[in-house]
């Protein structure tokens, strides 16, 4: 111990047990050392600094770090923090760190910061630095401590995680699937981008008051037809926890509904509780439409098969029926199943049930042949309809082969041709019958080309002509000209040709009577008629000609025609003989009654006693019948009287022409020629043309009858000439001549078997009524001439 001057005054010693202390110190030292070792050994970088920012402490790891990066680090002395920051921190992070640190120091608050620091080889690694101040009891900051941790791996892991999450999110958005997430209660909480794009709406955009989001989403975006079904399905899954899968239509942003296939799966936690529902939907609209189209097509095909108006069937390769279309089922009234019979093949059962017994064997044979050989099947047979009626069908079948050429199926068709067959049969029948008609008609038939060339002749015509059509060829003449020249009577061939030419030129029907040479050389009267057959355009495609042998009829018909004409022109053509016979009869009948009654009357009067009553009655009848006879006479007189009023000025030549044409048929029948020689310019005369015509007809007929016994050269010549003040007409014949030229005009004189002997008498009275004369002269060498005159100035002889 020292005094004030500092001298040692004393020494005081003290031995202090410092063992504990030494131990403690040692422990502290050791602890400090350990601490120092810890500080240096922990894999963190630790630093501290005084509040003034003075001296820095860096732990060993820090210093090693600096040394590895900064050249001559130990020589640099006290490093400056800003320099360190600049050299060691990533330039992008440095300013932030600087600012943060300054801020810490200024405010005295700790901080944490992340940055990239440089490592060896200029690699930057993420680090985290935390700064905290140590304060004394006053709260004054006495020291700043910092620790820097390498967190590069964590940061990178986090970044990778983030990246993955982003990728996942992108994935969720990018996968071509619409995804949403629902809460366990079913509320949609997430739509992926595709879904949003599809709807044009995000989740929550459709929220409606008073309605769950699920319901409002479904009502807004799902097709009304599918909405309730979907909602129901979702609710069921929510309740049961089972996944669901359903197809429905969702409304796209453009308003179009598209089919989607929706599927949902729950996500459960470890305890099995549902955490989320994941729902995806895939747009399957195109597939649905394709499928629908396919279904439509299939349905159409099926309809086609059923509706096609034919009976379709299919056999398998063994010939067992495997398919009938609806029409066939309806037709047969049987389906394939109906053919199951024990012990009999289905095909055999079908044939037995449905095929006409007469056709069954041949059909089975034909089918078997096809089944064995693979040749197509085709056959006509009768199929029994459900009502029991057998109808003809035409069946045909073709095999379907696989790529190896093996027959897989037979496709067959049976077409109902019953009506067609009947029509064909009827047509054939009709054609055959028409043909038979043409071939057997008792008429000669000929068909000619539009130019008139004959192309067909029926047997009757061939037989008549006696030669075949072909025989006309090669003569240099056309067939038509050949036929006409060879066949038609020379007197008529020119007229016939002319008329044919006219018809061929104009298309007018042809009709003419002429004589045609038969194979035996005899000319027979025929009537030929031809008419054109035209096509739809009106062009003549054929002339159809019918030719009737009327030779037999001509004569018979002449009689008939004469009778008819006689009736039609009674006043003109009626023969005077007929007239007088009729008059005689008319008068004779009442006369006969009068005579008989007179005798009776006489008897009654002479009876004993006289029967006056009956006599009276008979007298009355006598008066009546006598009057009736008188009436006849006065009627005849009236006829002549009337006639006088009908006289007209005319020429005799016209009347001769008329009389001649009226007598033509009779002349032809009697093979008499009529020659006419009439002067031209004959004067007009006043005559009753009908009466004079009758005179002429009567005289001509007398002449013709007079020649009945003459073998040939039958000829009537009529001459008319002007003689003085009269016109004289002569009718001469070449008959037997006359014995009594004057007596023949007396009434009832006749040389004829059937004559009344009135004709010439009446003729004479007619001519004399006209003021003319009628007489007869003998001809040389034979025959007679009847001559009458008619005065030009007619003075009616009263």
């Amino acid at each position: 111990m020292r005094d004030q001057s500092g001298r040692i005054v004393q020494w005081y010693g003290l031995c202090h047990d410092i063992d504990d202390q030494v131990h403690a110190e040692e422990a502290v030292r050791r602890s400090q050392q350990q601490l120092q070792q810890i500080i240096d050994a922990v894999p963190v970088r630790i630093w501290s600094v005084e509040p003034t920012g003075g001296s820095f402490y860096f732990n060993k790891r820090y210093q090693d770090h600096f040394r590895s990066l900064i050249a001559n680090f130990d020589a640099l002395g006290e490093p400056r923090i800003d320099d360190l920051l600049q050299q060691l921190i990533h330039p992008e992070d440095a300013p932030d760190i600087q600012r943060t640190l300054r801020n810490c120091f200024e405010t005295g608050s700790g901080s944490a910061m992340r940055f990239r620091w440089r490592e060896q080889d200029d690699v930057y690694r993420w680090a985290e630095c935390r700064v905290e101040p140590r304060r004394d009891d006053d709260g004054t900051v006495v020291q700043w401590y910092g620790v820097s941790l390498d967190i590069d791996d964590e940061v990178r892991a986090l970044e990778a995680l983030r990246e993955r999450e982003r990728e996942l999110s992108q994935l969720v958005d990018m996968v071509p699937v619409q995804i949403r997430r629902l809460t366990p209660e079913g509320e949609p909480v997430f739509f992926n981008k595709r879904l949003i794009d599809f709807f044009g709406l995000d989740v929550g955009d459709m929220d409606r008051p008073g309605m769950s989001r699920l319901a409002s989403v479904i009502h807004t975006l799902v097709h009304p037809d599918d909405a309730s079904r979907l909602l129901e399905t979702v609710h069921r899954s929510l309740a049961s926890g089972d996944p669901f899968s359903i197809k429905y239509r969702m409304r796209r942003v453009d308003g179009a509904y598209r089919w989607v296939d929706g599927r949902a799966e729950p996500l459960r936690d470890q305890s099995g509780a549902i955490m989320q529902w994941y729902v995806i939907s895939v747009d399957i609209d195109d597939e649905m439409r394709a499928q629908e189209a396919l279904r439509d097509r299939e349905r159409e095909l099926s309809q086609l098969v059923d509706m096609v108006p034919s009976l379709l069937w299919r056999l398998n390769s063994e010939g067992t029926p495997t398919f009938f279309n609806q029409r066939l089922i309806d037709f047969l009234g049987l389906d394939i199943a109906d053919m199951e019979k024990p012990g009999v093949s289905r095909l055999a059962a079908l044939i037995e049930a449905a095929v006409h017994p007469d056709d069954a064997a041949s059909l089975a044979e034909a089918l078997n042949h096809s089944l064995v050989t693979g040749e197509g099947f085709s056959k006509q047979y009768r199929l029994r309809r459900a009502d029991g009626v057998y109808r003809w069908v035409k069946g045909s079948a073709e095999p379907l082969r696989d790529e190896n050429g093996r027959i897989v199926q037979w496709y067959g068709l049976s077409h109902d041709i019953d009506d067609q067959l009947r029509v064909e049969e009827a047509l054939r029948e009709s054609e055959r019958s028409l043909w038979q008609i043409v071939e057997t008609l008792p008429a000669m038939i000929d068909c000619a080309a539009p130019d008139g060339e004959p192309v067909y002749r029926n047997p009757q015509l061939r037989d008549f002509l006696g030669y075949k059509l072909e025989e006309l060829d090669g003569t240099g003449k056309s067939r038509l000209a050949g036929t006409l020249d060879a066949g038609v009577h020379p007197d008529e061939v020119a007229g016939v040709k002319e008329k044919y030419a006219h018809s061929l030129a104009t298309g007018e029907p042809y009709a003419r009577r002429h004589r045609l040479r038969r194979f035996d050389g005899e000319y027979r009267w025929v009537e030929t008629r031809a008419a054109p057959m035209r096509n739809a355009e009106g062009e003549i495609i054929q002339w159809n000609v019918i030719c009737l042998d009327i030779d037999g009829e001509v004569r018979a018909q002449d009689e008939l025609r004469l009778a008819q004409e006689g009736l039609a022109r009674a006043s003109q053509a009626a023969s005077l003989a007929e007239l007088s016979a009729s008059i005689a009869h008319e008068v004779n009948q009442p006369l006969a009654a009068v005579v008989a009654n007179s005798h009776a009357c006489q008897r009654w009067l002479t009876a004993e006693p006289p029967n006056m009553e009956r006599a009276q009655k008979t007298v009355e009848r006598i008066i009546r019948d006598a009057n009736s006879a008188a009436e006849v006479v006065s009627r005849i007189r009236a006829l002549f009287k009337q006639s006088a009023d009908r006289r007209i000025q005319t020429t005799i030549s016209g009347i001769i022409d008329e009389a001649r044409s009226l007598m033509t048929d009779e002349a032809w029948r009697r093979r008499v020629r009529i020659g006419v020689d009439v002067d031209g310019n004959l004067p007009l005369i006043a005559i009753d043309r009908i009466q004079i015509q009758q005179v002429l007809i009567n005289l001509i007929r007398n002449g013709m009858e007079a020649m009945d016994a003459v073998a040939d050269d039958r000829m009537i010549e009529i001459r008319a000439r002007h003689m003085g003040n009269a016109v004289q007409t002569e009718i001469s014949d070449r008959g037997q001549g006359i014995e009594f030229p004057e007596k023949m005009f007396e009434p009832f004189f006749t040389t004829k078997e059937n004559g009344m002997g009135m004709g010439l008498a009446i003729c004479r009275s007619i001519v004399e009524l006209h003021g003319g004369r009628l007489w007869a002269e003998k001809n040389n060498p034979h025959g007679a001439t009847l001559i009458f005159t008619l005065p030009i100035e007619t003075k009616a002889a009263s």
Partner: protein
Amino acid sequence: MTADDHIVFIVDDDGRIREALGELLESHGMRTIAFESACDYVRADKPDLPACLILDIELPDINGLELQRQIADRDHPPIVFITGHGDIPSSVRAIKHGAVDFLTKPFSDADLMAAVHAAIAEDRTKRSERAELDMLKRHYLDLTPREREVLPLVVSGLLNKQAAAELGISEVTLQIHRRNVMQKMAAASLADLVRIAERLEIPITHSRRVGGN
């Protein structure tokens, strides 16, 4: 007044003629029935009496001559033809086929009545002949077969002996048959029987000379 034992049929299409003829014949006390056409006549029920048919040639349906031809093979009354205009061939034909007369209208009372009376008389004769023949036929039918064999032999003039030999029977038996035949045929004598056989047209099969062997 009129007689009931004969009748006259009139066929004429002219009512006046029918009337006048009826009157005339009635004035002669004759019954008449008139017909308008041949058909009416053919179809009518006519009394079965000796009769005369006055027939007009010109009838509307069948010509009188044609009617004559049609009824020729039946028993019919003799015909008197009347005609409006008689022609020779027709009259010849009519008479040839058995007409009593052919009168042309108008005809006289005397001609007509002569013809009608002749016709009725002819018919009466024909009828009695027919009746007699009918009776003979009935008699003949009464004969036994053997008697019918005997009859021709007897009327042929065979002796009983010859006839019996012909039939291979005894002469006595033959005589019995012959007597029966004479009785049944009501023949007064052999000559009578021969006449009856002629009427019945029983052929004479044997001659006595030839068959007398």
